């Protein structure tokens, strides 16, 4: 005769294991949710700071180039060189100026993937309003 406790594991009294399995699955789900939640929270915080900093840097550079009347020159090389002196080493940026009769764009191209932010500023060129736009991203 098989002892009763063995029956509970291998024998006819296996109902108990269903409840145990149920509890184990429930606990695993809770632990997985808590772990993913913690990881997501720390990643989301880092990403938010990086994104906001990128936007502010792009806007600042555009404003300074406007103040120095470099955007108004519509000289692609001059804009690019001046922009490069300000850009942090881990960041790149593309500037596009859309005037009524012309368009200027710096050569740097954004990557196909990853975080890219954009912004724009209305500027005044030769008596007309124009739009200066930027795309900024981390290298």
């Amino acid at each position, binding site marked *: 005769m098989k*002892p009763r406790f063995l029956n509970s594991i291998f024998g006819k009294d296996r109902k108990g294991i269903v409840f145990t399995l149920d509890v184990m699955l429930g606990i695993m789900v809770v632990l997985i949710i*808590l772990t993913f*939640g*913690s990881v997501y929270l720390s990643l989301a*915080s880092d990403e*938010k*700071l990086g994104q906001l900093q990128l936007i*502010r840097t792009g806007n600042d550079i555009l404003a300074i180039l406007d*103040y120095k009347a470099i955007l108004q020159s519509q000289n692609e090389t001059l804009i690019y060189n001046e922009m490069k*002196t300000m850009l942090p080493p881990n960041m790149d940026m593309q500037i596009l100026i859309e005037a009524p009769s012309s368009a200027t764009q710096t050569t740097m191209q954004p990557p196909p993937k990853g975080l890219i932010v954009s912004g724009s500023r209305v500027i005044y060129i030769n008596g007309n309003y124009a739009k200066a736009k930027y795309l900024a991203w981390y290298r």
Partner: protein
Amino acid sequence: MSNKKAQIVSLDLTIAIVLFSIIVIAIIVFFDLFLNRLQTNLIETEILNNAFAMSDFLVTTSGEPTKWSNTSVRVLGLADYDRVLSEAKLNNLSKLNYNYTKGLLKIDIFDYDYSILITDLNKTSQGIVYSYGISPSPSAKTVIKIRRYVIFKNETSIFELDLWKG
């Protein structure tokens, strides 16, 4: 025979209690970790939003009145124009009491501290042209560093704002 049965039940119970305890402890530890992360995240987000808002109005607005002095200031703003800082306003800021400026910036209610550092972009070392406030202490729990580009004394400069909570 009956004694052996009791031993099995006892062993079974012990194993169950140990397993249950391990699981309960694991859940408590994970939940505590999760709550800590959540709280840290909330505090960081709050300081982050305040730091960006503060840097925005310091470098883009002129304050109130527009040409404020250390006796007439109602709202702090350090710019003459958008991203062009006024030397006179920065000198006036230096004359103001630090705790009073915290009140003007509305950060005293959050118990934050701050420091402002302006460095010349073209000088790689010792390019500090202005500093004000209290730098973050090594024991500070949360420090947010914001870096803005400005024009100061006709030079492109970096305006660094550290907002922190001890």
